[in-house]
């Protein structure tokens, strides 16, 4: 028995050596194994319950008629084997096979499955066209317009499928209701746009309002003044206090590193510390964040190049020194620009010329500024904008439709290309221009026509659907060979996998260079993307759905009379806690095992006071060192809330949650006529939940699953439904948080559970890979993905389970980078004819 159990897991860890000449005789093919060892066994011991009519536990094992079917039903058989291994099946009430027979059948099944797993991946599996999810829509619009708002609030929820994610292609529907809501949202998005012919489409946080052409002209003139103001504001703000420059720079740096420092540092607090003007600092901070002026980028570049705060003291010190250097540099930069510009703007000669020419000061100054090569050199971005703005005024003053459209069209094309995530062809360009022209007729104003065209782009299936270049897939694949996706499509796969949004410019450039399929370039790109701010999507979408903290928002609610603290603010905090934890793990590139076990966590003031942790202020999540029992998933508030009944904790739900979410081995559903807390003693209110469950397990039918589920739940009993540590349960009895696992080991509390889970880390890692792959591909994992999963598991084991390895290897994998050829209807391969069997240990 042990031999068999070890063999099941060894497949995960041993490292595949496909094609190694086997010690097993050639005659021992899958077909023979099936016919001699597996089929007769199943027939005798299993079919009584698991046939096509009875389907006990919703399992029908008669569907398999040969080894290929075993592979095609990989998931089912893998699960069946665990049951089998743990001697849960056949159930105690049924006839038990002799140990020798059980072992032989088990090893034969295992050999068939393992040999397939050990092979090389050959089939990338299906790829489907799919609609953006609501969350992807939101983020794509954010990266398209710069406005981050919950546009799709009120849309019907995206259902989940496959491995449990909402990005599952075939459950992303479009319905008339969805379409209606989209049209309304399209209007709202477009209403935030302001369009100038030369600088193009800009989106503002607030709707801009509909403007006739004359109002539009007025607005454009005002814009010129604003641009000039921005140049002065951006560069002139520090002129009063030369010594303050480095301090402003330092404050800005700390402000921008808030996430890495682990605590929010507001401009207000920083200004106080450094003795600076808080309003000025706030303005500067916002200016850097929001301005697209190139004149802010110099400073931003320097701030970005500064090191993040280090973890160890030595690193922190080194970082500080580097930072000091960089701060000096930044201060100098500001100073230089200020002086140069002050000279330019305040030069007495300019003033004189203005009056001499008899023109208004303003107008003359602009013209002079445009001629000033020094200004152009110093602040090229702002200079260019001023140039554009003046040009726009000129254009709009004599709006010839042809000229305006001629100016605007390139902006429109750029917008559409970004939205469609691909180059647009000549026909599409013509159509957009024609549409703009028609809309102008309809609305009688240029800007409104442009907005209408923007809306048209957002409502287009080219934006809403991810459609890959099928034509590429048609090439090449005559022999059923997998076809690489185009570099552009690979970039899109990456950006929706890691960011749930559009590719950024750097990624597009990398794709355009044609090097994205180059392994080195791909790995670099994935690593860059994991560190980018957009990778927050992994915390709020991927991990949240896998680890279940998304369920906080679907939980039916805790009883407010028992848990008065359990409000929406606390829910949000628990979600943020979990998100912050996984994002920190990604940024540090820690081990996946830290999800299970660690001595740190994240809290804000609310969570800290809930958990009795002192000295934490503010709403921002902050990393703290903590007791081992609080570290990792099992110490998150979300884990306890989402597995609670409205009025109490549930050892059964907790146990099932660990089996499903962490180990990827969900227990089968309970039979219909059995309640979770059952029967003869159900009316005895004096029994604790634990005592009732123990009675429950006396029933052998229940014991098969509950002997696995309940002990895990018991070990978590030291937490209440909100994740507070407790010593007394709901009935005011002392907590007994010792659970005895199936193999007889005692788990003392949540730390004992962690130790136990870590002995099964192979299962955890396999589940992590499966979840990540399913999410990356937007489809269910199939048998054809098993070799890929095995390869990634091996890489992770070699690499100390580093998080980046998981994302890198999934991105490099065959199914992620390739498509099935169009003409291969079913690319099912025949793994069993590939060679001799490996010897199973």
């Amino acid at each position: 028995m042990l031999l068999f159990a070890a063999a099941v897991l060894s497949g995960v860890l041993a490292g595949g050596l496909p094609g190694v000449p086997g010690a097993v005789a050639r005659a021992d093919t899958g077909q023979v194994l099936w016919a001699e060892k597996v089929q007769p066994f199943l027939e005798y011991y299993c079919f009584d319950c698991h046939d096509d009519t009875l389907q006990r536990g919703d399992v029908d094992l008669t569907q398999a008629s040969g080894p290929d079917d075993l592979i095609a039903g990989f998931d089912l058989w893998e699960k069946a084997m665990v049951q089998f291994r743990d001697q849960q099946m056949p159930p105690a009430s049924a006839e038990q096979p002799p140990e020798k027979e059980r072992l032989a059948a088990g090893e034969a099944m295992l050999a068939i499955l393992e040999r397939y797993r050990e092979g090389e991946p050959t089939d990338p599996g299906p790829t489907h066209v799919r609609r953006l999810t609501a969350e992807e829509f939101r983020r794509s619009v954010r990266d398209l317009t710069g406005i981050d708002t919950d546009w799709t609030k009120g849309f019907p929820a995206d259902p989940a499928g496959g491995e449990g994610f909402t990005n599952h292609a075939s459950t992303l529907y479009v319905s008339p209701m969805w379409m209606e809501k989209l049209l309304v949202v399209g209007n709202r998005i477009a209403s935030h746009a302001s369009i100038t012919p030369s600088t193009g489409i800009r989106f503002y946080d607030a709707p801009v309002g509909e403007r006739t052409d004359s109002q539009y002209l007025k607005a454009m003139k005002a814009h010129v003044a604003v641009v000039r103001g921005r140049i002065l504001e951006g560069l002139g703000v520090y002129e009063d206090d030369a010594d303050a420059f480095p301090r402003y720079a330092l404050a800005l740096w700390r402000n921008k590193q808030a996430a890495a420092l682990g605590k929010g540092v507001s401009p207000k607090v920083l200004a106080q510390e450094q003795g600076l003007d808080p309003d000025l600092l706030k303005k500067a901070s916002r200016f850097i964040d929001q301005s697209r002026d190139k004149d802010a980028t110099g400073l931003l570049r320097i701030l970005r190049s500064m090191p993040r705060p280090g973890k160890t003291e030595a690193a922190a010190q080194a970082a500080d020194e580097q930072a000091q250097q960089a701060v000096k540099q930044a201060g100098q930069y500001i100073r230089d620009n200020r002086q140069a510009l002050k000279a330019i703007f305040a030069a007495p000669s300019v003033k004189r010329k203005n009056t001499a020419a008899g023109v208004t000061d303003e107008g003359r100054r602009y013209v002079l500024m445009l001629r000033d090569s020094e200004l152009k050199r110093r602040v090229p971005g702002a200079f260019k904008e001023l140039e554009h703005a003046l040009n726009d005024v000129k254009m709009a003053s004599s709006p010839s439709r042809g000229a305006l459209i001629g100016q605007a069209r390139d902006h429109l094309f750029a917008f559409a290309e970004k939205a469609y995530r691909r180059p647009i062809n000549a026909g599409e360009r013509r159509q957009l221009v024609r549409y703009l022209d028609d809309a102008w007729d309809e609305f009688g104003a240029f800007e409104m026509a442009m907005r209408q065209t923007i809306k048209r782009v957002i409502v287009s299936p080219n934006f809403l659907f991810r459609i890959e270049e099928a034509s590429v897939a048609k090439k090449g694949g005559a022999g059923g060979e997998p076809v690489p996706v185009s570099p552009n499509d690979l970039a899109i796969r990456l950006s929706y996998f890691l960011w749930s949004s559009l590719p950024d410019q750097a990624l597009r450039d990398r794709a355009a260079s044609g090097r994205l399929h180059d392994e080195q370039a791909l790995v670099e790109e994935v690593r860059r993307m994991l560190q980018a701010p957009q990778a927050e999507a992994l915390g709020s979408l991927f991990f949240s759905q896998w680890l279940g903290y998304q369920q906080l928002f679907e939980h039916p609610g805790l009883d407010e009379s028992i848990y008065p603290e359990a409000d929406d603010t606390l829910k949000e905090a628990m979600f943020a806690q979990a998100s912050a934890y996984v994002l920190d793990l990604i940024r540090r590139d820690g081990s996946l095992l830290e999800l299970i076990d660690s001595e740190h966590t994240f809290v804000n003031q609310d969570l800290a006071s809930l958990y009795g942790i002192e000295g934490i202020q503010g709403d921002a999540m902050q990393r703290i060192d903590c007791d081992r029992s609080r570290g990792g998933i099992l110490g998150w508030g979300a884990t306890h809330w989402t597995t609670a009944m409205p009025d109490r904790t549930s050892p059964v739900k907790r146990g099932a949650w660990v089996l499903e979410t962490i180990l990827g081995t969900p227990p089968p559903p309970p039979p219909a006529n059995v309640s979770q807390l059952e029967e003869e003693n159900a009316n005895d209110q004096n029994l604790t939940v634990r005592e009732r469950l123990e009675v429950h397990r006396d029933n052998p039918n229940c014991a098969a699953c509950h002997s696995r589920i309940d002990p895990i739940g018991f070990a978590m009993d030291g937490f209440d439904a909100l994740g507070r540590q407790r010593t007394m349960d709901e009935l005011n009895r002392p907590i007994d948080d010792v659970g005895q696992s199936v193999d007889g080991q005692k788990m003392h509390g949540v730390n004992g559970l962690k130790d136990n889970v870590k002995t099964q880390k192979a299962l955890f890692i396999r589940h992590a890979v499966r979840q990540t792959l399913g999410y990356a591909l937007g489809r269910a994992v199939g048998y054809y993905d098993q070799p890929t999963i095995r390869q990634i598991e091996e890489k992770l084991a070699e690499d100390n389970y580093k998080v980046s390895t998981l994302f890198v290897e999934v991105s490099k994998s065959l199914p992620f980078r390739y498509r099935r050829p169009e003409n291969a209807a079913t690319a099912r391969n025949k793994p069993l004819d590939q060679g001799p069997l490996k010897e199973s240990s």
Partner: protein
Amino acid sequence: MNKKTQIAGSDASLNASSKSRAVTRRAVLRGLGASVALPFMPSLHASPRAAEIAMAAALPGLPASHTPPTRLACLFFPNGVDVKNWKAQGSGKNMQLSKTLAPLNDFKENMTVFEGLAHENAKKGDGHYVKTASWLSGEVVRKTRGEDIRAGVSMDQIIAKTVGANDPIQSLVLGVEPTKSRVDTNVGFTTLYGGHVSWSSPVMPSPKEVFPRQAFDRLFSVSLNQRANASILDAVLRDANALRGRIAAKDRQTLDDYLESVREVERRVEAASANAKTTKSGAPVYPKGVKPPEEGLPQDKVDHMNLMMDLMILAFQTNKTRVATFMFGNAVSNMNMNFLDGVKGGHHSISHHGNNQQQVDMYQKINTFHVEMFARMLKRMSDVEEGDGTLLDHSMILYGSGLSDGNRHQSNNLPIILAGGEKIGLNQGRVVSAPKGTPLCALHLALMQQMGVDAKQFGDADRAIGL
């Protein structure tokens, strides 16, 4: 009187006393619009003729004629019932109702209680999802985590597409719980199935609206009337057609759904533009006395249910649609029911009571609560005068679940009640004991025929039940 004892009354036998209609305190407080944000139209108390004139003047919608159209609403509740307390016998005034059905005392002559109906196709599969998705379709629900979803077309959607094709809104699909975005790995089903009783195609559910304001805006907003949308829809139709040629055959369905949705919205834009009522500034004109509900999801669950049900009534009353479905909860809903006196815990957990008497009592109270909500809707509909009777007289309200005994996941002898329809010739005031094995689809077929669908067969029924 202590209403706690009133609800928890231990007598499970048939109870004919109309005085003991069990209503929770909170439901009473909210009854008849006390705190509901949708005051009814003044036509409520006007003469039928005046009401019609007012309606026709104020509202875009179906032309007001003297014969009101027949409407159908289907109300679904999850997790089955305590079967011991779901019983009726006798007929008409003398019908005797058990504890759970007692709130329907005032409507004994306006309803039929069906016994013995079953969904053969829903017996296999899991305990909840297939019994929800197939409630109105009667088809086999394909077991899947998300690939190749299939549940058959539901009868309300067949009606919507045939007789409702030219209504301002083909059908109203409402609920209170958003569809869960999960895969239930214990049973291998996507929870998508559990969120939908309405299916517009065999492979696609008709999404339900859970936000009252959004549902209201669909009924009365002019956002779709803008001429602008017509040209956009034209343009994106071209986009979709161009793409369609480029993609693999298996993916075309996705784009076809898009195309069909665009066409349907185009149709609505045209219909809405033709008789849009707006102020000069473009603001929508609502029926007199009706204010839009608040944005967002109501905190209070009873308010939420009341609002959604009122919206159905309002949609019927203003001739916006003639078909509606409503879900009191998704399959396996574990809604925290502690707002009911004497109930603590989640709905689904309580439904698996394991014959623990305390749990059974709570289960029964939840069942009663839903019946009260149903009775309240009937009451409101019977207060709306219409044509030669009331709105209720011209409507059929199907109330039921896809499970009988929730504790045992049984789908025989489903709890099903049909109310209303006196003026369309329904023979009400009966308890119909259908022969064993009579498909629920036989009732669905009868309802479809009543609504004017020319169908001879539906699901596993080739004969309609007599109504």
